């Protein structure tokens, strides 16, 4: 009998494998971990939000119409915010000056008057 023939070789290997016993214990929750790794490998990686934004900035924003709209909107937002803040500040300063005028004329509203 020639053990070098392919059929004989397979048989010998099969016998060897059948005789093999693994004595080392598996780590805890080994099967779960394996399934999790398989699931993770099968799920397509979602592109991060930043990638989408960067992609948009790189491809869409340079379009003239979009770029002009973007700049115009930001200009309007900046100007509106500035105008709102300026109005609030002016109102505050003018209100304060009015109170100062009254305090200058009314001894009972002067800072030193303790009993009104």
């Amino acid at each position, binding site marked *: 009998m020639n053990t070098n023939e392919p059929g004989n070789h397979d048989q010998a290997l099969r016998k060897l494998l059948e005789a093999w016993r693994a004595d080392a214990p598996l780590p805890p929750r080994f099967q779960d971990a394996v399934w999790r790794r398989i699931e993770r490998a099968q799920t397509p990686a979602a592109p991060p939000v930043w990638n989408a934004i*960067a992609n*948009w*900035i*790189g*491809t*869409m*924003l*340079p379009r003239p119409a979009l*770029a002009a709209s*973007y*700049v115009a909107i*930001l*200009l*309007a*937002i*900046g*100007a509106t*915010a*500035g*105008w709102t*803040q*300026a*109005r609030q*500040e*002016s109102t505050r*300063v*003018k209100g304060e*000056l*009015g*109170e*100062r*005028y*009254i305090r*200058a*004329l*009314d*001894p*009972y*509203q*002067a800072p*030193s*008057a*303790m*009993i009104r």
Partner: protein
Amino acid sequence: MKKGMLILALGLALAAAAYGCVYFFGTSSARNLEQTNEPELAWLKEEFHLSDSEFKRVSELHAAYLPQCAEMCRQVEAQNQRLKELLAATNQMTSEIESAIAESAQLRGECQRNMLRHFYEVSRTMPPEEGRRYLAWVRERTFLPGEGMMRAK
């Protein structure tokens, strides 16, 4: 990508610049008022739309009234101090406290009369409509006790 980032940065820079410019010009009037020698009078001129001659007259009246006001302030302060000491010295009503309270009320009345005279004079210097508005404004802040507390609520 580079061009897109450039546009992004340009938009943000323009927004910041627009904010700064509008804020700067929007507050210039208030800033100018604060930088004058007498900001409260400058405010009065702007608020009640006074001409230069009206403003000059109002400033003169104001300057003439201030020494009277300072004297009243001194008296009010002294009276307050006296009342405070009397109240701290006892735990019952005394004739001295009663007379101090009456003097305080009298002082307050005198103070209000002086103020009102001044307000009328100032209002007469202004154009009629502005004068009425001025009187309503000062009345609300000086002659309607409790209004401030109502507003605070």
